[in-house]
């Protein structure tokens, strides 16, 4: 909301600076977002006097003017306007002035004649659309004066952010009330001087009003004016509207805008000559009905929209926009001036559905002062008569099915202070409430009765009055106290919550050298389709910003894959990322119809190490991502997990199921695998993209079921023996390990794979040509230990011998 300081001062005798006012309003809850000079772009234009005008020697449409701009020497300016004449006062842009459009005035030669400035039209100054000729200024002005000063243009405008509750502040009057309150100044309403002309008729007889439902329209008033001459508004009104960003249109329409901005009451003027019959009806539309609004658009209506009708047809969309069939034109002379109140929710629904927000609907949907609307109508009629020469019929046509009902609330000072944490006095609260326009009955000192004024529709409850007292006192003056707050001790413990678990997961991710990504929860349908993910179960956004983001992600992968594309485009080729976020799938059993499942995604791509030196260059593969998963499972006390190839997966090949052993059998906690090259291609990844996707909720449940427990450290030394088996390359290391364990060597403490050696390619070829399958060597280290004594070599040799002898019998291996 833009508020001109000069306009404001017509209501309140504020003499301070605009900054002081801005500061005070801000701390009263009316945040001043900026202080604007609306005419900054013409601040340097001066008044010039055309002393002499001669025709241009080389052109019949140019004139050469000698212009006095108050300096020692007159300027020679070439001007192309037909209306320029000696003796005029005109606006002059001097050399070096930047015009509103950005053009800079330079010394120029026009057809051989030097021109040192420009005489401006109204359009060039942004003051109107007028461009048939230069602007002619009043003769009383002094050459050299700044144009903005000479015309009295308003230079100080506050941009105030009005919160939705403060409908009363959507006007000069509202801000003036707050200024008066903040600085202890009186509020002065403009004097009314409406001259009715009974000879012109009587409004109440000329127009009959019918309101179908007082809930939708509690009051409708109309005045009738006759013999208006439509034309330009006077300069003061046009400049004032311009200063607050409103485009002047014509005198009658400008007055309705002026009153809207000044008093906050939306008005509408009809061309009464175009209205059929002598009746105005306020009634809902019917479903499917249409109306052409004054912008020429045909609007399709619903039964919930409210219309203004004449005797035959709808003539306006109530509170939103007038109809094209009855609006004021240049030819209008008869005016019906509407001043009504409409139900806020109805106006809001219509304006939003039709995407037709207007200054009027904005105020109606927030609430307009029903009592104050009488004054607004009178002042509007007076101004219209003044600016258009119209005669005002006597009286007001009024229908008020639901008059304003005063509201009264209790006010307990003790509770007010208890809520705010301060000790306001009764005197302060009484004067504050009175200053706001409330009536105060404090005959019961503990429980006052306070009536709130009709312009403060937001003062609905006792607590609203507390806020007013706190606001006027200054929230900044409430002390800051570190509270003694009691709370229940059996509240959640952080480490055991989902939240705590996710924090621990993130700590693991960082400790494992991964970088945390945070992606959008929504992706595009295309992103899910590309991964061949099921269509059913997707949760779609009804009003997406773009088709790239029209569905909630059902898996963690799409976001991480987008990160691959982005980073590769930026030249970041080595990626080790993780993300913990929710995946969303439709679920009828959930309160919100959506199952929100927290997932952990891990993605590795490209060089294993972020820099080449001092490592051998190598690329991330299955063992990298598997190692991360094994490490995580161990970290969560879930063992190493078991890994089973899954023959088919929508986008991973190979895909490996990650299972954790539980008492109830193995549980699938997630999958790891390589993104299919064709799909990875779509993300511009040329190297292998390895991904793990784990169910955080399940991991948490499994991990919670285990407890870390202490095992005493071994006291006696271990004996270690290695065994190397030569086996077919197709035999899994896991099978050898299992076979060793099945042989049950006594005192075996642990068993670990320590080396895998695949003979060189040459021998492989040789093996192939020999008709033998390729082989590899696996070395396992067996650690033997006895808990209560030191093992002697002999007994270890015996157990180890069992392994060496037993293995070739169980498996196709040689030792």
């Amino acid at each position, binding site marked *: 909301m833009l508020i001109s300081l000069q306009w404001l001062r017509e209501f309140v005798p504020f003499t301070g600076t605009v900054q002081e006012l801005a500061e005070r309003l*801000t*701390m009263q809850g009316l*945040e001043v*977002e900026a202080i604007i000079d609306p005419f900054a772009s013409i601040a340097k234009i001066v008044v010039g006097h055309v002393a002499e005008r001669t025709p241009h020697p080389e052109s019949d449409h140019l004139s050469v003017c000698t212009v006095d701009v108050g300096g020692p020497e007159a300027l020679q300016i070439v001007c192309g306007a037909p209306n320029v004449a000696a003796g005029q006062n005109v606006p002059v842009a001097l050399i070096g002035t930047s015009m509103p459009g950005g053009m800079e005035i330079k010394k120029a030669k026009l057809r051989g004649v030097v021109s040192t400035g420009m005489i401006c039209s109204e359009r060039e100054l942004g003051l109107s659309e007028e461009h048939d000729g230069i602007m002619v200024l009043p003769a009383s002005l002094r050459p050299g004066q700044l144009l903005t000063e000479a015309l009295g243009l308003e230079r100080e405008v506050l941009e105030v952010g009005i919160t*939705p*509750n*403060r409908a009363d502040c959507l006007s000069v009057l509202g801000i003036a009330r707050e200024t008066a309150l903040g600085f202890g100044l009186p509020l002065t309403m403009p004097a009314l001087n409406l001259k009715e002309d009974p000879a012109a008729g009587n409004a109440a007889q000329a127009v009959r009003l019918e309101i179908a439902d007082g809930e939708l329209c509690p009051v409708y008033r109309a005045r009738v004016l006759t013999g208006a001459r439509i034309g330009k508004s006077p300069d003061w009104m046009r400049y004032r509207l311009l200063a607050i960003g409103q485009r002047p249109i014509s005198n009658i329409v400008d007055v309705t805008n002026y009153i809207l901005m000044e008093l906050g009451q939306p008005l509408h003027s009809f061309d009464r000559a175009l209205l059929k019959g002598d009746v105005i009806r306020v009634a809902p539309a019917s479903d499917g009905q249409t109306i052409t609004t004054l912008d020429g658009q045909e609007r399709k209506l619903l039964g919930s929209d409210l219309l203004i009708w004449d005797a035959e047809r709808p003539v306006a969309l109530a509170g939103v926009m007038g109809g094209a069939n009855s609006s004021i034109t240049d030819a209008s002379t008869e005016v019906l001036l509407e001043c009504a109140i409409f139900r806020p929710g109805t106006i*809001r629904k219509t304006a939003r559905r039709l995407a037709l927000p207007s200054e009027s609907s904005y105020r109606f*949907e927030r609430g307009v002062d029903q009592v104050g609307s009488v004054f607004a109508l009178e002042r509007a009629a007076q101004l219209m008569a003044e600016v258009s020469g119209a005669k005002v019929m006597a009286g007001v046509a009024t229908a008020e099915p639901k008059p304003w009902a005063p509201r009264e609330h209790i006010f307990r000072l003790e509770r007010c202070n*208890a*809520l*705010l*944490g301060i000790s306001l006095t009764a005197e302060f609260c009484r004067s504050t409430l009175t200053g706001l326009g409330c009536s105060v009955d404090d005959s019961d000192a503990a429980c006052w009765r306070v009536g709130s004024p009709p312009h403060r529709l937001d003062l609905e409850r006792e607590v609203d009055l*507390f*806020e007013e007292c*706190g606001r006027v006192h200054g*929230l*900044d003056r409430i002390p*800051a*106290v570190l*509270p003694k*707050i*009691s*709370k*229940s001790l059996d*509240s*959640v413990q952080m480490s055991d*919550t989902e*939240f*705590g678990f996710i*924090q621990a997961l*993130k700590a693991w991710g*960082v400790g*494992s*050298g*991964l*970088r945390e*990504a*945070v*992606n*959008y*929860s*929504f992706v595009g349908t295309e992103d899910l389709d590309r991964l061949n993910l099921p269509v059913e179960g997707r*949760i779609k*956004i*009804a009003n997406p910003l773009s088709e790239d983001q029209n569905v*909630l992600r059902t898996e963690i992968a799409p976001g991480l894959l987008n990160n691959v594309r*982005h*980073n590769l485009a*930026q030249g*970041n080729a080595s*990626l*080790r990322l*993780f993300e913990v976020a929710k995946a*969303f799938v439709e679920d009828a059993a959930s*309160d*919100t119809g*959506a199952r*929100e499942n927290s997932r952990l995604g891990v993605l590795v791509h490209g060089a294993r190490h*972020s820099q080449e030196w001092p490592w051998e260059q190598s690329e991330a593969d299955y063992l990298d991502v598997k190692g991360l998963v094994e490490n995580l499972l161990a970290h969560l006390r879930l063992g190493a997990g078991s890994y089973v190839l899954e023959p088919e997966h929508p986008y991973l090949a190979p895909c490996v199921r990650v299972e954790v052993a539980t008492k109830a059998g193995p549980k699938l906690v997630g999958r790891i695998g390589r993104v299919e090259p064709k799909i990875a291609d779509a993300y511009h990844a040329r190297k292998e993209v390895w991904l793990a996707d784990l169910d955080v909720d399940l991991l948490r449940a499994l991990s919670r079921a285990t407890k870390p427990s202490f095992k005493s450290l071994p006291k006696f030394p271990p004996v270690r023996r290695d065994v190397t088996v030569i086996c077919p390359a197709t035999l899994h290391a896991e099978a050898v390990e299992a076979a060793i364990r099945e042989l049950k060597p006594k005192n075996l403490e642990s068993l670990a794979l320590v080396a895998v050696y695949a003979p060189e390619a040459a021998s492989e070829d040789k093996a192939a040509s020999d008709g033998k399958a390729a082989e590899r060597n696996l070395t396992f280290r067996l650690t033997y230990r006895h808990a209560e004594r030191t093992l002697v070599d002999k007994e270890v040799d015996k157990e180890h011998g069992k392994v060496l002898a037993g293995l070739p019998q169980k498996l196709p291996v040689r030792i």
Partner: protein
Amino acid sequence: MLAELRSLQNTALQELAGVESPEALETWRQSFLGKKGQLTTLLRGLGALPAEQRPEAGRMANETKQALEAAYAEREEALRGQMAERDLTASALDVRLPGRPPALGHLHISTQTLREIYAIFGSMGFDILTSSEVEDDVTNFQMLNIPPDHPARDMWSTFYLTRPGLLLRTHTSPGQIHAMHKYHPEPFRVILPGKCYRYEQVTTRSEEQFHQVEGMAVGRNITMADLKGVLAHFAHRMFGSERAVRFRPSYFPFTEPSAEVDISCMLCGGEGHVAGEPCRVCKKTGWVEILGCGMVDPNVFRAVGYDPEAYTGFAFGLGVERVAMLKYGIGDLRMFFENDVRFLEQFS
């Protein structure tokens, strides 16, 4: 015999002076002092001497042995020093080579900022609770005193789901409702972090997704002064004790009274200007807004069954990315969800 001992000692010491490596030193030791060394061999001959010469020879032999052992120890010490020096200075170690870096991960800047926020409120006894991101209109709006068709709805542009009545939460405030349901009728204080969504064009200063932290305290006799104490403490710990903090009346449907909290601008120090130019961070005001707050509205209490005559409380909400932007001088909100590793690595 004596002459032989003397000559042996001389030879040995001479040779020792030429010893330059631990290996040569060991050879020398074995050659003179070892089981089969020259001194040992010589000493075996002691028994063959006439009895009257034996004590003298024995003493001499001992002296020689001690002298050689001492010389050996000295030489060994000297060699060890030389070797250590050589290891460091000669080609063996280039001390200026870049080290082998451990693989370090990074938490996302939003997570890091969230952790700072948890730590501060945690120290003031706030628990942490989370709630769902898909919400219904009732919990996201209506129970928070925002009826349908209320102009306050303009404050939140909303993503709706295709299923009627469902939406992506526009703020963490529905968490207030979940927290009150959970703790009712006990007093509590809690923060509720999480992702929120707004139907807003993405620009450097606005995002369709962001993290918020909601806070709420409910009990008997909680006042606005308590709210100010908690939030002023937060602002000072988060942004520095030198920051000025102000509470400015504002409006949120679910709090009454409501306020916004500003801190003095960190770029211009509250002056509104930097080197004569208008400050771009605070737009000349000298203040930057960090959060919204207020006392819990009685209608919200009623919606979940707390008696507003008996209970009071406060609530607040702050934007995590906004805090991070102010704190670290990040100018573009869009970088948070691009996940460019060069961005992710910057904060630790």
